[in-house]
Each structure stands twice: as structure tokens, then as C-alpha cells.
């Protein structure tokens, strides 16, 4: 016969396994895993280490942008400027490093600071001037797109004079330690950003206000919280993260391409929503966002590996985005 303690332990384990929480977490991955299974059956080339690492690397930029967008979306806002802000920050890094020849850390700080600054402008437009986020960030998107071209002189800026620059996203610190796991630094940065953001959202006052703003801004204001201030901070943080994305893409391409960036916002927002963050605000997780970004990358990569005609790739991607969100809705219901 089993002792009571043993029984207890069993019940606890069962409770943990079958508790809603645990299943929910596993099921969130369901779409991702289903996609991966389908593609590995369809093509032997899919499930190779290099390709998986390639998928991770392809997720780096969109993943970081999606994390940036997650903050804003949890407040119930939206940020259409993440893509062009990323480009703008990359150009700033280019100006600081290549045109002015300053050392690399200065360029890195400048890019992130530029992102945070532009984010805070969006924040002021939205919080203080009460411009709806969609329009404020649409305006910023165009403004930054233009400014990136102006500042760079409509030319790419190359980082050839900053030899360490490609290291930011290309080389592999992990690979140096574990040679069988040559995960590029860009991916590492993505995960660091994700973990830090997750921490901020769940364990700091900023995170608490981010959720509170999205849940019921008026109630937060009536509770004596300076909602405008915190909203501006949220947009600044989001902007700073876009700056990091700018560094990753610039490092990957070893150049700041001023014309790039528009359209990236939709991928980022799609990742956030596929990841279960509500566009009406108040709820969301970084883990979900990362899964969402991975779903998009896996899908894109898989379809390309299968050499599906481009037009059909678009059709399938559109359909899968809808299905993934629908699956998430069904999961939540049950």
C-alpha cells in the first residue's frame, strides 16, 4: 500500500500536469509544433540543425520588433512605426560609427537612445496630445522613413570601419563555448531582450501600469496614477527595443539600409497577436509573442524550402495567420 504522502505527491503531480495552466502553456505551442511536424514530413531539409538555427536567426529582427510592439499593444495602443524606427536607429548607428568615426559602444548607445527618444515622441503625441495611437505612429512611421533617407543621404551606410560591428548579430558567443550549437548572437540578443521584457512586464511597476493602462486607463487615472507619464515611458521602452532591432539588422547586413523597414510592422503585430496578446489591451505575454514570431518564421522558411510559388506562399501565410489565431481562441474557450 502506498503511504498518504506518496498519494499526495501523485495527486500534486497529476494536478500540475492536468491543471489548466500547464496545458494552456503547452497548447500555446500547438500551432508551432504542428507546423514544424508538417514541414519536417514534407521536406527532409527542414529539420536540420543549420536550418533550425537559420529560422531562429530569421526570427531575431521580427522577434525583437514584436517584443517592442507587445508593450504598446498591452496598453491597448498600436505601433505602426516599429519598422521604420528600426531603420532610423540603424542609420543613426551608421552616422555615429561610420560618418563620425566614434567607437562602437557610442554607436550602440546612440541607436538605442534614438529609439527611446522617438518612442517618447510617439508617447507624448498619444498621451499628451491625445492623438490616437494608430495615427500618431502612422505619422511617425512616415516621418522616420523620410528622416532615415535624409540623414543617410539616401545611401546605405556601411560599417566597414567598425570591424567589431558584424559581431553584434552574426558571430556566435554560444558557439564558441558549445561548438555544436552555433547560435548567432542576434538570436541570443532576442532571447535576452525577451527575458528582460518579460521580467519588466511581470515584476516591475512599469509592467503593472502597462497592463493596467490597457485594462482600464480611466480607472488607473482615477487611482491617482500619472497615466500620461507611464504611457510615455512605455512607448520609450518600446522605441529603445526597436533601436536594438536596428542594431541587429544593421549588423546582419553590415550596413544601414535607409529604404528598408516599412511593412515590418505588420509582421511584428501579427506575431504579437498570434501569440495571444489582445489588441484591445490588458493581456499578453512575451513568451506568446516569441512563439508568434517563430510561427511566422517557420511558415516562411518552410514554404520557401518547399519552393512553393511565391504567390501561393502569400495565400498560405494569410490563411495560417487566421487559423493560428482561431486555434488560440478555441483553446482559450475550452
Amino acid at each position: 500500500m502506498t503511504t498518504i504522502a506518496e498519494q499526495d505527491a501523485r495527486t500534486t503531480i497529476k494536478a500540475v500536469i492536468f491543471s489548466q495552466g500547464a496545458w494552456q502553456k503547452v497548447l500555446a505551442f500547438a500551432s508551432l509544433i504542428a507546423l514544424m511536424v508538417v514541414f519536417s514530413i514534407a521536406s527532409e531539409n527542414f529539420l536540420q540543425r543549420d536550418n533550425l538555427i537559420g529560422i531562429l536567426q530569421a526570427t531575431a529582427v521580427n522577434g525583437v520588433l514584436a517584443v517592442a510592439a507587445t508593450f504598446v499593444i498591452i496598453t491597448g495602443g498600436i505601433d505602426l512605426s516599429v519598422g521604420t524606427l528600426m531603420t532610423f536607429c540603424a542609420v543613426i548607428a551608421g552616422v555615429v560609427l561610420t560618418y563620425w568615426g566614434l567607437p562602437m559602444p557610442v554607436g550602440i548607445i546612440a541607436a538605442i537612445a534614438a529609439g527611446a527618444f522617438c518612442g517618447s515622441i510617439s508617447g507624448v503625441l498619444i498621451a499628451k496630445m491625445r492623438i490616437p495611437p494608430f495615427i500618431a505612429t502612422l505619422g511617425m512611421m512616415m516621418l522616420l522613413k523620410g528622416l532615415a533617407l535624409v540623414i543617410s543621404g539616401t545611401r546605405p551606410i556601411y560599417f566597414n570601419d567598425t570591424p567589431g560591428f558584424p559581431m553584434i548579430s552574426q558571430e556566435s558567443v554560444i558557439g564558441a563555448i558549445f561548438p555544436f550549437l552555433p547560435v548567432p548572437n542576434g538570436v541570443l540578443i532576442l532571447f535576452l531582450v525577451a527575458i528582460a521584457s518579460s521580467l519588466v512586464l511581470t515584476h516591475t511597476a512599469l509592467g503593472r501600469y502597462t497592463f493596467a493602462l490597457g485594462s482600464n486607463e480611466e480607472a488607473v487615472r482615477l487611482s491617482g496614477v500619472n497615466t500620461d507619464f507611464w504611457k510615455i515611458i512605455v512607448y520609450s521602452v518600446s522605441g529603445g527595443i526597436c533601436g536594438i532591432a536596428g542594431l541587429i539588422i544593421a549588423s546582419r547586413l553590415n550596413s544601414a539600409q535607409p529604404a528598408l523597414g516599412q511593412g515590418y510592422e505588420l509582421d511584428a503585430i501579427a506575431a504579437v497577436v498570434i501569440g495571444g496578446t489582445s489588441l484591445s489591451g490588458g493581456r499578453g505575454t512575451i513568451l506568446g509573442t516569441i512563439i508568434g514570431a517563430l510561427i511566422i518564421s517557420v511558415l516562411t522558411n518552410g514554404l520557401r524550402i518547399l519552393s512553393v510559388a511565391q504567390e501561393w506562399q502569400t495565400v498560405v501565410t494569410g490563411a495560417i495567420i487566421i487559423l493560428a489565431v482561431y486555434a488560440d481562441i478555441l483553446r482559450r474557450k475550452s
Partner: protein
Amino acid sequence: MVRDEKSGASFMTPLVTIQNLDKAFPGVQALRKAHFELLPGEVHALMGENGAGKSTLMKILAGIYRKDSGGIRIRGVPVDVATPRAAQELGISIIHQELNLMNDLTAAQNIFIGREPKRALGLLLDEEALNRAAAEIFERMHLKIDPRVEVGKLTVAKQQMVEIAKALSFRSQVLIMDEPTAALNNAEIAELFAIIRKLRAKGVGIVYISHKMDELKEISDRITVMRDGETVGTVPTASTSVDAIISMMVGRSLTETKTEVPDLSSHDIVLEVRNLHRHNVIRDVSFKLRKGEILGFAGLMGAGRTEVARAIFGADPLDGGEIIVRGKHVTISSPQDAVRLGIGYLSEDRKRFGLATGMDVASNIVMPCLSRFLAIGIFLKGRAIRETARSYIKQLRIKTPSDTQEARLLSGGNQQKVVIAKWLARDCEILFFDEPTRGIDVGAKNEIYKLLNALAAQGRAIVMISSELPEILRMSHRIAVMCEGRLTGELPAEGATQEAIMRLATQRHSLTADTLTMATREPTT
């Protein structure tokens, strides 16, 4: 506090003095030279008809609206209460008439929003301390609410308790309660009053807004009455009568009469439900409703009355049971089906479920019956719509500058009247009124009672859900009592007493699995 005890003089300095306050909203002069005074250690009731300006006055005191002119003094010192934060710093906290909660946050997070305990050099939130502090407050209030439960998942009553807990957590010197009991049952009200008495003993000044006369007699020390934005006068509660207050409020006196119970046994049964079932909230509910009958639904908070009404109305899906309307079995899978069968439902939460708050009054009134106002099934008959709306505005005395005023700009009670007008306009044969008088002043309440009686006399069948036992006893022809999703009994109106109802309302069946976990879930672990 210490200073207060030492010098008797400063003890008598009013906590709050408001003089000549003016406030205008577009189209409405909400306050005209209003004045008000609150002493330490008193419960000061603020009364007045819907739209009299009570909430506006208090919102100005709490830093939510800016005054147009006039002066506010706290302990004799002129102050400018520019923001809610400023009010908090002056020791003023408020429980709003409408719920103001962040539904996605937990109860504890709601209570301490803006004042979160920190750890790790103030960088990280101390969630444990937060939950502990909330649990303490709940314990003081004898409340069984898990501090970690999302507020959006609580019933209206519990949400209201969270709001009260939040206001208490400030430990303010001035506590404003704008209709705190509108969603509460008697036991909870008693609990609240005990808390209020404790605070009063500690010298806290409490402004208490309510439309429930009996409460005021019980709890208040002085009563200030407002009418049309002006202060009519302040009287000590002990030396006044309900009638006197009512005539101050409305400028005339009202008489209450118990409804005559007509003989309904010959009337047709218009609605019958059998063995209604919905997972965990409705258990085997059966009842009949006759033409011309007012069936009162009594019960404690969370008894499942709202759920029953919503389920019959098709707003929520059912797991089992039959619904028979006028002798025919029907399936109701959406409110549309219900309305088509002549069933109307007036929700208990007007802001969320009753009104399109951004639309004008007229549009709201004709919403359920818009098809009646269409030419060739497409075009709106604008004039007919406005005429209908105006007739209801007049009939129900809805206080609004015009029928084109946005519904969200009306006072709470007048919003409720708009919702009632909606269902009157639809002309339904079976009507569910879920807390129809919540937040409504005595005058209007009387009108609604008259209306309910008139509707019943016209042959309509009415289910009136109410948590106010006097109202149930006064209005019902028959009383059904619910507890934990079950119908625990039916009483004829004659001879029914509050005690009999309460006995049935607390007749718990057994501690089933889910109620057990609910009851034993410890707030602090």
C-alpha cells in the same frame, strides 16, 4: 490624530467645507452655488434626485472634475484639488458610483494600483506583500475574495466590495461613498455599516450617497439634500423624518402603498421553464409565470438570478432544460430569438449591457424595436423615432436636455430610465427586470413601481430580480428565492416576511466540490 485629541477646538473644525461651487457641463448646469460641510467623525448623507449633482460635487472634491468657481477648504485651509493624486494626498478617497476597475488585474493589484509595495531597491514589485495586504483588508471586511483572482471574473457585488476595499486601503480622513450598496445584499450592507461605524469612531468623515432611505436612518448623522445642483439644506438625521427628506428632495411628498395582489389563478401561463441547467451556476431551476403577474426573484449575491434571466433570454448558452412560451416548447439561442418571442431583459449593469453609451437617447430607446420605424424595411423614420423617444422621456421623466443627448452624459439613474424605456418601447409580453431600481432615487423608484404595476395590469408578465427585500415584498405577487443556483422555494406574497425569504436564501444544499474550494481557498499562501 494626536492633535485632534488634544485640542477640542480643532476637532470641531470641519474636515471639508465647500462653498458656492459652480460646475457646468455642455448643456447642463450641474452645480449652482452648492455648499456642503463635513465634520470629523460624522457620517454625512448626501441625497437628491437623479441628476441633482451629488456625484458631480463629490467628484470635484476628489479631484476628478475641475470646479468652475467656488471654494474648497480642508480643515479650514483653502485647497486646490487638481488631480486624484492631490485628493489622495489631502486624505480624500472616493468609491465611485460606477465601477472603476481594471478587469484584467487581480483584486489585490486593483486595490494597490499606484501604491505597489516594492522590493530589491524598489525595482521589483513585491507581489507577496501586495497579496498579503489585500488579504488583510478583505479579512477586516469579512470578505471571501481571493486577492489573486482577476477582478473581471467577479460578480458585480464582489467588484463593488473590491472598490470599497480599495477606498479603505487609503486610510483617508475623508471617505466618499457614492452609492456603495447599490450592488450589495443585506448581509454585505451590514458588514459595510460595521466598518463605517468603526471609521466614524476613529474620527474619519464619511460622505454617504444613497437612494435607500432606510439605510440613511440607520447610518447617517446628518443629511444634506440637493436639488437641481443647489443645496436645499442640511438636517440632523435624528430630528427628521423620511417624508420630510423626500419632500425636500422632490418638493412634494410621496406615499408608498403595498401592491394589491390580484387573483391570477385564472390567467394563462405565458412562460414556463423546466429543469434549467447551466454548468455550476444554474441547477435544476423550474418555475411558471402567469399573465399579469409580478414574480419577485430574491436571493443573496451570486445566487444565480441574473444567470437564470440571461439564460432564458438567450444571452448565455444553456446546458439543459426546457422553455415553454405560451404553451409551446421553444429553443432560445440568442437574445434575438427571445425578443421575437416577446421576452425582454433589463440588465443589472446598464453601462456594460444596457446602453450604447456613445449614442443618443432616442437611438437607445428604439434599439430593440428599430424594425418598427422603417420605411420599406430600410429607411429610418426619423420623426417617428424622435416622437416615440420624447414620449418616453416625458413618461419616465428622464432628465436630459434633449433626445439627442448622448446617453453617457446622463446621470446614473437617468441612464437606467433610458434602459427601461427601451423595453417599454419594444412592448414585450414577458419582461425580466434585473435590479430595475439600482441607483434610482425615491421619486423615480416610485414611478418605476407604478410602471411595473401598470404593466402587470395590462397583462404583461414580469420577473423582477431584486436584492432589496422591502422592494421584493412590496412589489411581488409571488416570490421565488434562489440560493447557489437552485430555486430553494416559492412564497406567496401575502404573509411573506424578510425572515422567511432569508431562510430560503441561505438554504445551502451541500458543500459541492466547487463551493468547497471557493470557501476554503486561503487568501494568503
